[in-house]
Every structure is written in C-alpha cells, then in structure tokens.
C-alpha cells in the first residue's frame, strides 16, 4: 500500500518494546506479497526474506533493519482508581503532561495524563518540572472498575492521530521507527520489479528502544555480509544548531563515522548521486544510538551503514517527517541492493 497509508496504519497500532505483537502482524501481512518467506524470530523480530532472483546462487546476504517498537509507559501502582507509571524507553517527562494515552488493560482504556489546573497551584510550583512519580493516568472510570480492568505491569501507549501538515510533512507518534519499516516495505516493493544477486533480509526489529536487542539477535541469526539500519535522525527545528540536524524533505541522512563502514558510506552516496536521489551527509562521531551499533559488532563483525529519516520532535507524540523522504529511502535501498554483485565483498575489504 502507499507509504503514507502504511505509516498511518503502523502509527495507530500499539507496540511498546517487548509487547510488539499487534504491530508485528501488520508488518508480516505487508511484507508477505513481496517476500519469498516471512518469519518471526525468537525475540519477535519480523524477517522478510527476498531471495536473489538472477537464477544463480546468492552472492551475499544483506540485512536491512528498522525497529518496530515504540517507547511507552507501564503501570506501577493503582491508587484509588488512578494509575502511577514508569517509562519503557526514554521519555522527556515534560512532554507527558496533558497527553492522551491508551492503557492496555483487560481492554484498551483511553486515558489522560493528568495535570493540576493553574487555579490551585502556588506560583513557585509552576516553575518546576513535574517528576514522573507525581503524574498519574486517569481513565475516567470508578475505582472498582479500574481494579477489575487494570493491573500493575499493564502497558500504556500515547495517543495521536496522524495529521498531515504542509509540504508532505506528517505528524504522529511512533514514527520512530515505524517510518523505517515503511521504507523497508517500499524497498521490497521496488525489488519486486528488479534483478538482484544478493539475498535480502528486511527485518523489523524489536526492543530497540530498550537496548537494540532485536537487532543483536536477528543479525546473529541471519549472519549477513552487510547490514544497513534505517532509523530517525534529528530534524531541523528552532533552537537547535544546524550542525546537529538534518533538513526535512531534502532526502535521507547517510551517516558517517566509526559506527559506519566507510566503503558502504561511499557506495550509498554513489548510488544516490547516480540516481539523483537527494541526500544529506550525517556525521556521527560516536555511537549512532541505532540498530547499526549492535549489528556492527555481531559475531566477528559486520560491515554496517545507517540511513537517517529526518524527523523533528523525536520521542514526542508529534514526531514530524516528510513522506517524500520515506519514498526516497525505499528507492535508494532497492537501487543499492541491485548494485551489489560478486565483487562487493572484495571491495569492502580493500
């Protein structure tokens, strides 16, 4: 299906790290028509395998990784019908105040992360960030019903209907990193009409936000010759130096730095240039904070690269990106894969 529609479908689904089943199914269904085999590994990552289709043995294995888990919250205490919570993944607690959420109890319960109104707050309290243990979730039900429907350990996701802004920009939750899964689907879609001599493993990984765990175990299981992670990179916004961001709508960031195999970087740039796909250089001096960090050091090491989707307001419910960039990444990946041949592995070593 079209990129924006798939993104909306993925964003609407709930799948906090470790509890990704609902999202997994949507992805498996989408990968199916474009893959030779779709399977789920032991930790829950979805792997779509599209085999080399030149009639000869595959000349290598490439793994693409985009994570399907989202950051969320977990119920820690039920207090007179109100829920106290902690985080699964990294939230800036300041963005949670007044946020609508979905509490996954015995059934999904819409809720609100409550805030005390200004009328009752003394002036000095309004200058402080409210810590997470002083927030609560209100599902608007009587205490007895809450006790029946909710238990400690229940997951909570933030609620946001995807909204379309100007210039093909869209805003929503869980674009980090389901937008990358959209890119994987786009890539598989393009490959359906292309010849490629390498086996392609499109992997929607789990538990990235809580330690890159899906990438570690999937990369171990697949043992690819090349790994490319697709994740989100900080988009331009007021108050952040340009040096730290990528521009929305001007193509993916192609990362460069110690986490990235320099020859893979050059190859990706060459393919982008040859096909007039706009891109931006994304210098990352240390850990990229993505599945690429885990893939690079799997087993005896895997040449790894990273494509970044420029995205504003990361880890909020209004993450914003350009759908044009998603389409570009899908194409770039497919064209890159089609360029791989029996010389590639030798070129990487040189």
């Amino acid at each position, binding site marked *: 299906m079209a990129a924006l529609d798939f993104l909306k479908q993925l964003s609407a689904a709930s799948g906090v790290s470790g509890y990704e089943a609902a999202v997994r199914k949507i992805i498996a269904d989408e990968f199916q028509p474009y893959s030779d085999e779709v399977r789920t590994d032991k930790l829950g990552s979805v792997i779509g395998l599209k085999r080399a289709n030149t009639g000869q043995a595959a000349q290598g294995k490439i793994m693409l990784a985009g994570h399907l888990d989202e950051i969320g919250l977990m119920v820690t205490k039920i207090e007179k019908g109100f829920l106290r919570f902690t985080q699964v993944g990294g939230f800036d607690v300041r963005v949670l105040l007044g946020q609508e959420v979905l509490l996954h109890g015995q059934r999904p319960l819409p809720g609100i992360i409550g*805030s005390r109104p200004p*009328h009752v*707050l003394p002036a000095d309290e309004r200058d402080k960030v409210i810590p997470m243990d002083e927030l609560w979730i209100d599902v608007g039900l009587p205490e007895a019903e809450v006790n029946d429907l909710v238990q400690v350990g229940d997951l909570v996701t933030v609620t946001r209907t995807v909204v379309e802004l100007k*210039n093909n920009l869209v805003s929503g939750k869980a674009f980090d990193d389901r937008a990358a899964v959209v890119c994987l689907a786009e890539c598989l879609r393009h490959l359906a009409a292309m010849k490629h001599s390498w086996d392609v493993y499109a992997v929607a990984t789990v538990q990235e936000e809580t330690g890159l765990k899906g990438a570690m175990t999937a990369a171990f299981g697949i043992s690819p010759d090349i790994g490319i992670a697709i994740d989100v990179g900080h988009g331009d916004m007021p*108050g952040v130096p340009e040096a730290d961001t990528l521009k929305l709508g001007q193509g993916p960031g192609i990362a460069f730095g110690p986490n990235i195999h320099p020859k893979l970087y050059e190859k990706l740039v060459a393919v982008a240039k040859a096909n007039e796909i706009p891109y931006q250089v994304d210098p990352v001096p240390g850990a990229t904070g993505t599945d690429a960090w885990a893939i690079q050091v799997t087993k005896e090491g895997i040449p790894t690269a990273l494509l970044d989707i420029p995205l504003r307001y990361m880890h909020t419910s209004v993450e914003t990106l350009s759908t044009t960039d998603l389409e570009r990444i899908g194409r770039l990946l497919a064209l890159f894969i089609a360029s791989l041949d029996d010389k590639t592995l030798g070129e990487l070593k040189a």
Partner: protein
Amino acid sequence: MLLEELSNASGVAGNEGEVREKLIAVVKDHVDEYHVDTIGNLITLKRGTGPEPRLKVMLAAHMDEIGLMIVAIEQNGHLRFRPVGGIDGRVLLSKMVYVGKDRIPGVIGVKPIHLLKPKEREQVLEIDQLTIDIGAKNQEEAQGLVKLGDYAAFATTFATLGGTAKGKALDDRAGCAVLAEIVQGGPYPCDLYAVFTVQEEVGLRGAMVAAYAVSPDLGFALEGTVCDDSPKKKDLSPTTRLGGGPAITIMDRSVIADKRLVKLLMDTAKELGIPYQIKQPGVGGTDAGRIHISKEGVPSVAVAVPCRYIHSPVSLLDLTDFQNTVKLMKATLARVKEF
C-alpha cells in the same frame, strides 16, 4: 450529543462565533427573543408563566475557551504565540492545534530528549520559547496560510469513556450544554434570561456587559469547574470530586455567593435526592463575579459540573454530574422567588 458538538467547536476568547452559531440553532425555537450584543454575547429570553411582575433570572454560561493567538511568523515558517486566558505552559509541549478559520493543523514540538543537556531536562520551558509547526518551508509560505492575530485551539476530539466524557473546553461548554437543556425544558414561572457569554477567560468581560443590559433580579453562573480529586503527596481536600454531583460555590476569588441562593439550591437538592457538593472555598472565579456587582448589585451564585484538567488540552467530566446539574437547576428555577 450537544456537549460533544460544543466541545469540538473552536471558540477561543474573542472568537466565539462557531460556538454561538451552534447554540442559536439549538435554542432559537425554545425562546421568545434572542439577540447578539456588541461584544458577542448571545442573550435570550424565555418568558415565564407566572403572574406579573415576574422575577428576572439571568443564567450565564461562557462560550469561550482558553487557547492561543499567533503573534509572529518566523523566517523559518514557524509560528510564535501567546496564551489567551490562563494556561500553564507546561501542558503545551507535544500537542496539536488548529490555527485560524481554516483550521490549519500544527504541532507544538520540543527539542528531543537526546539533544538535551542534563540541566535542560529540569527546566520548564516558557511559552515564548515554543513554536507551532504547520510544516511551512519559510515565512512567505506561512504568511499565505495564517496571519498575525489568528486564534489556535487545541485539536482534541470528544469521546465518552463509560460514564465519563473527555474533550477540550469542558470549561465551559459543559455549562453551555447545561444551559441549553434548561432552555429546552420548562416552562418556568420566572422570566429566564439564558445568556451565553463571551470572554470569561480573559476577565469575565461578556458577563459585565450582559448583566448591565439584562438587569436581572438574580444571577446564576453555570460552569465547568476545577476538580482536583486525584492523588497528591500532601493531604489536601479536593476542590470538587468527580461523581459528587453539581458543585455549589459558597465563595471563590470573584464572589461571595448570596447565601439565600445557596440555601435554595441545597434545600432543593436534598428534597429531590440530587447529590451535590460544596466547591472548596477560595478557588477560581466565574461570571457571577461580575453579575453580583452589576449596577446596584444582584444576588448571585455559581453552580458547576466538576471537570478534571481544565485549562489543558483535554479535560474530563462525569455524565451523571452533568445530568444532575441540569436537574438541580431546572428544579431550582421552578422555586425561585423574590427575597
């Protein structure tokens, strides 16, 4: 449901037209007269059935909600804004709004956590540090879509959650919906001036003007009021409780309610078995604050539906509280008499 329609409509203080139009459509066949005054109040009269001279009772519910106003369009296409009414800036982060009469969607974003220095995580962002992002590439594009002075309202969709309902602006669309039901009921012995006021949130302004024009004998403000009944570290009694019934004001920061009206409400409630509660004294202000000092004075009181999280993008009320507020007011209106 009228409450749903009113909650979803845009009506930031100073721009209440959409809400007013919906209310006119609902009440016009149930009142004898209505007009819109110079500041935008919708003033209606439903004549009573009692013998002349009849008591003139003014019921006021405000149509306006808190929101934002665009004050600058930056070079990068982002919009700067200021609050209309009292908003705790901390609730604005990571929220969605609709800007202007074309309801252009925009988001209030935040610097991502990954880029924050540890000290920054402890800092409350001031409203003047925030922007609305509508996706415009630059100033010129943004200027073609929105203008200085455009209002922005929260993009929250109303929904029922079992016996409660969540939505934006329940302060005071709850009061407006209660008043609309009262108007559709009756007949009442007294002359009922149902006034849907404007600009309560920026200083109880509409009520001042409406009370002067109507010159009522008695005044009731109908509100969606502070409900602070969730767990806290300190043992503070809540301002009101959800599910505790309509909240009667004895005293807030704008008025000391006329104790005869308070007694009338309480007696009526007790007699009919309608649950009620007394709002924590000293909190907030309502249109009653203006009505009671209009001209030579008007005995007044406020009756409210408790709402959690008012003055934030999404608030919550109990539908039974809503129904009981309507019930209590209708019964009380049948009994008001001259003091």
